């Protein structure tokens, strides 16, 4: 009998709660992320988006409830996360990209990835000397090199200018085109409109809406989502 191939999708959160330092950050959150077009996690500051991504990636464990990733355990081996501020190791750009890549041809694959994000000319430069936008592209190449099933991104362009933002979005699009599921948190509405397949809206640690993009942007169901879309909901 053939065993079903292992997969991390759908990612199912069942009544997930998370507390830290006596503060409840996520509350009773149930969410189902399917394979396919990018899922955008939207919400104001302090909504709990970063914590949600870290839970799904496996960096944190829920205080309550459970997370199932397809038919395997939640793990940093099968998914990758690009942080808002990337951490560049004190070595060359190429070495950074190669860091998470397992196997003999790590440097070769890292070179190819650098090519795809347009940074081959900086391969030998110390990574910490790059601009914010360039570092974020290095982080993307590095995460891509992990061959993830799901790529999580935590507000990757929040500190970047429009040109750098555009470059990052293009790369995310290329990764998505390869079949990698994108789950991205952002508070940039324009970016959300450009990339979303479906939207999960968070507010004060609760999931208020999870709908296809068109539905969310044209006809939000909750007053908080509507306020957020008008630019009125700041926290």
């Amino acid at each position: 009998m053939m065993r079903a191939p292992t997969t991390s999708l759908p990612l199912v959160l069942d009544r997930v709660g998370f507390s830290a330092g006596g503060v409840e950050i996520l509350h009773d959150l149930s969410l189902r992320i399917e394979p396919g077009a990018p899922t955008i996690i939207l919400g104001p500051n302090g909504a709990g988006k970063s914590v949600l991504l870290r839970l799904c990636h496996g960096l944190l464990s829920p205080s309550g409830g459970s997370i199932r990733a397809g038919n395997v355990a939640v793990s940093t081996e099968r998914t990758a996360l690009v942080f808002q501020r990337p951490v560049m190791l004190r070595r060359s750009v190429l070495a950074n990209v190669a860091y998470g890549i397992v196997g003999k041809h790590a440097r070769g694959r890292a070179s190819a990835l650098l090519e795809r994000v347009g940074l081959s000319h900086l391969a030998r430069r110390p990574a910490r000397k790059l601009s914010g936008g360039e570092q974020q592209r290095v982080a993307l190449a590095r995460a891509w090199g992990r061959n993830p099933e799901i790529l999580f991104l935590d507000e990757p362009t929040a500190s970047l200018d429009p040109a750098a933002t555009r470059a990052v979005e293009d790369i995310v699009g290329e990764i998505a085109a390869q079949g990698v599921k994108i789950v991205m948190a952002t508070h940039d509405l324009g970016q959300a409109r450009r990339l979303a397949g479906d939207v999960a809206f968070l507010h004060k640690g609760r999931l208020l809406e999870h709908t296809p993009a068109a539905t969310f942007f044209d006809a939000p169901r909750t007053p908080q989502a509507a306020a957020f879309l008008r630019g009125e909901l700041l926290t």
Partner: protein
Amino acid sequence: MHDLSHAFSLALQLAASGDPGLWQIVGLSLQVTLSAVAISTLLGLPVGALLALGRFPGRNALIVIFNAAMGLPPVVVGLVVYLLLSRSGPLGEFGILFTPKAMVIAQSILVFPIVTALSRQVIEDLWAEYSEQLRSLGSNAAKSIGTLLWDGRFSLVTVVLAGFGRAAAEVGAIIIVGGNIDGFTRTMTTAIALETSKGDLALALGLGFVLLMIVVLVNGAAWIARRAGERLAGA
């Protein structure tokens, strides 16, 4: 002031003269100090890393103890090691007292806490910056420690140089356990102590300047090695 300038010219004469007695003393000083630093570094870096990353009962007490041990009085360490290595002491059968080996042991005891305590701080600070990113990239404990030690290499070299400085400058411990035996356990610092006690202050100060020149040379060599390393890594 006249004494100082006289001593300085004496130092230059000594260094230029190629006096074999002087170079024997310089050679022994370097042997003892470099051996103690090597031992302390080989033990201190891993222990510092374990203290930085580990979480276990008694960790905080250990950190305080190592920090305090940076201030161990050399003469007390010398006395304790002397009592241990004396023929009437527990380790007397090895016959190590009054030999360079005993001096290396005493200096290692002084330098080891310095390397451990300072590298712990360096690695802990680096880990605070790196831990999430390294875990996200699938780095296990062993690989993480290697990454921290490599990425922290410049600060860690300075830590080792601090240990070297302490060992090169010290006289209280090695004069007790070594016995300041002419031609056998006499080092720069013990020779300076001897000449001072004989009232030959100019010679003592002159030897002091020679010692300073050597320490500066060692630090200069470390600097050159670092620049060469940077260039090789493609700065």
